[in-house]
């Protein structure tokens, strides 16, 4: 029962070449994951022959995102690709874009309200669940783990945290979880983890919400405590990360951490542009499985393509299909 693509469909389904300029806003310039994403965008645009405008950057500020969107529209954008890190405060903008019949592809986050043509994201709840299941099994269902959370104001951070907590409670009730809100800051992560290890030297697992900011501090703290040892050592602390950046893969290879959820930066870029082009051409999609190992699900305000986010462990870390192995 999808109604989300009516606006786009009115554009006329007969378009052949690219149907107009695509405006794209990057959410921030200071995170490794998003920097990889913004590197992939022009590359994919070339491959998909998308007419891309000069990208804007909203520096993690929804007010800037709104301003940038307005500017892109004034400059003639026919489709907007955005990644609203703040999913509530974008509603008015989506409403205005709908009024102007400009379809929106939302990457990484699902706006709470307002029409979207397609949401391209991986399931952040699944990240949390995968991390929980991995840690739970490794720890044999008991012990203590620390969750280095992102910011409370971030939907992705909240999704990961809730899913992780929920899964631990139902599937591994014997495991104690310490939640540490780090505001995505490495410095806070290091301090909190250090303090928690002091208090509970028997902590055996860590789930980090963002490898980009949490990886180095976590390794550093474990090293200082002499806990950075191979997985077969009884002192080993099991670490699951999230993002899938090359440094995480290196750490997995070295046995310093055990797994990461690879959030597919390349696929985000590719399918964001793919759907943007489709929107410009007036194509419509239906819920159901796709040709690229994912499923489109129906939302009240549009559709969502849930891209696969594989759990990377020592076993599959050298898989060349992982985006983290393609950048250097």
């Amino acid at each position, binding site marked *: 029962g999808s109604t989300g693509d009516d606006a786009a469909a009115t554009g006329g389904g007969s378009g052949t070449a690219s149907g107009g300029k695509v405006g794209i806003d990057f959410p921030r*310039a200071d995170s490794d994951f998003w920097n990889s994403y913004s590197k992939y965008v022009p590359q994919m645009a070339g491959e998909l022959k998308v007419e891309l405008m000069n990208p804007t950057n909203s520096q993690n*500020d929804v007010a800037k995102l709104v301003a940038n969107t*307005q500017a892109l529209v*004034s400059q003639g954008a026919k489709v907007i690709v955005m990644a609203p890190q703040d999913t509530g*405060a974008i509603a008015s903008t989506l409403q205005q874009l709908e009024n102007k019949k400009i379809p929106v592809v939302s990457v990484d986050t699902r706006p709470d309200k307002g029409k979207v043509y397609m949401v391209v994201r991986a399931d952040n709840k699944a990240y949390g669940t995968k991390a929980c299941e991995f840690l739970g099994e490794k720890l044999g269902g008991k012990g203590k783990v620390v969750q280095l959370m992102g910011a*409370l*104001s971030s939907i992705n951070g*909240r999704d990961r945290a809730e899913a992780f907590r929920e899964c631990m409670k139902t599937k591994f009730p014997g495991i104690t979880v310490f939640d540490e809100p780090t505001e995505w800051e490495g410095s806070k992560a290091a301090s909190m983890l250090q303090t928690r290890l002091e208090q509970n030297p028997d902590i055996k697992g860590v789930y980090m919400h963002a490898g980009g900011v949490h990886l180095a501090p976590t390794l550093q703290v474990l090293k200082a405590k002499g806990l950075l040892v191979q997985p077969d050592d009884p002192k080993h602390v099991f670490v699951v990360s999230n993002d899938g950046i090359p440094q995480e893969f290196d750490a997995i290879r070295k046995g310093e951490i055990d797994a990461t959820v690879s959030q597919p930066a390349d696929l985000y870029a590719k399918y964001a542009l793919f759907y943007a082009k489709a929107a410009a051409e007036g194509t419509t999609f239906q819920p159901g499985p796709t040709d690229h190992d994912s499923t489109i699900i129906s939302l009240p305000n549009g559709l969502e393509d849930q891209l696969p986010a594989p759990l990377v462990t020592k076993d599959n870390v050298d898989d060349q299909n992982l985006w983290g192995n393609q950048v250097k």
Partner: protein
Amino acid sequence: MSTATPSATPSPPPSAAPAGRLRAGAGLRLGRFRDLTLVPVIVVLLVVGAFVDPVFLTVGNLTNVLQQQSALALVVLAEAMILIAGKFDLSLESTVGMAPAITVLVIPATAGGSGLLAIPLCLLIGAAIGAFNGFLILKFQLSAFVVTLAMMIVVHGLHLGLTGGKSLFELPESIMYLGGATWLGVPASIWIAAVLFAAGIVGLRYFRAGRALYAIGGNPDAARAAGIRVDRVLWTVFVIGGALAALAGVLETGRLGGISANQGVGWIFMVFAASVIGGVSMDGGKGTVLGALTGVLVIGLVENVLTLKGVPGEWKQLVYGGIILVALMISRVAGGKAQD
């Protein structure tokens, strides 16, 4: 008094008088334009913008810029008044998010008729925060800077705690209205900001209470000795400041259609930048609301030009900061006076 000059005092020597008057004229003219040292900067930005993109000088784009800046502008208005009175308020930025958020928690979207109370309630929350700041600073004699720094964290903490960090998007119509409505073809928020700035300019220039701010900021002891009820005036300014920040929150909420847990966070730097490059002194007693307004415009125009130009994200900050530095220097040269 006035009339009876004692005969012992002769009138000043004829030679000195005309010279004195002439000089007075020059001083006056300079004084008039001291608020407007950013005008050359604005002109430069308009010209540069026109070259960067033809869209820039369209009514639509400039209206967008004004609308985007209107909420920030209200906070700048509040901060400028507080700075002129010689105090600080860092907590305004947290009020921008917290006041509407609490309002929405109290009056949910489904409230019906009582939804009309949303805006008054929101302003009241802002005013209450201002009053509490004033209480701590004036009665407890704490430093305004640290008190409002702590309050910035507390107020935002309340917002986070009560909303659980979630964005709110089921909002009563009434609180959404102002930020989105258009009156006579111009966004309501621009009207509101314009009216309030006009009131601020007139109030601080032609009203006793407004002049009292300058006296207090310039020398609180002298102001007290001149019969100004310093504490009462300061308290009022904090209350008005809080209410203005809450109103800014309402405009921002309506414009964005939702209240994120980050609404307002980080604004205070821009607020201070706008006020201070607009000529408002951090030491109190100096500057005007009009000057602060030019500061807001400069910041809005810089952001707009950078967006239109499509400066890559990783270089944007550098360019942005660089332009502000240059703006500072231009205004310094235009104003001719050392800043502080």
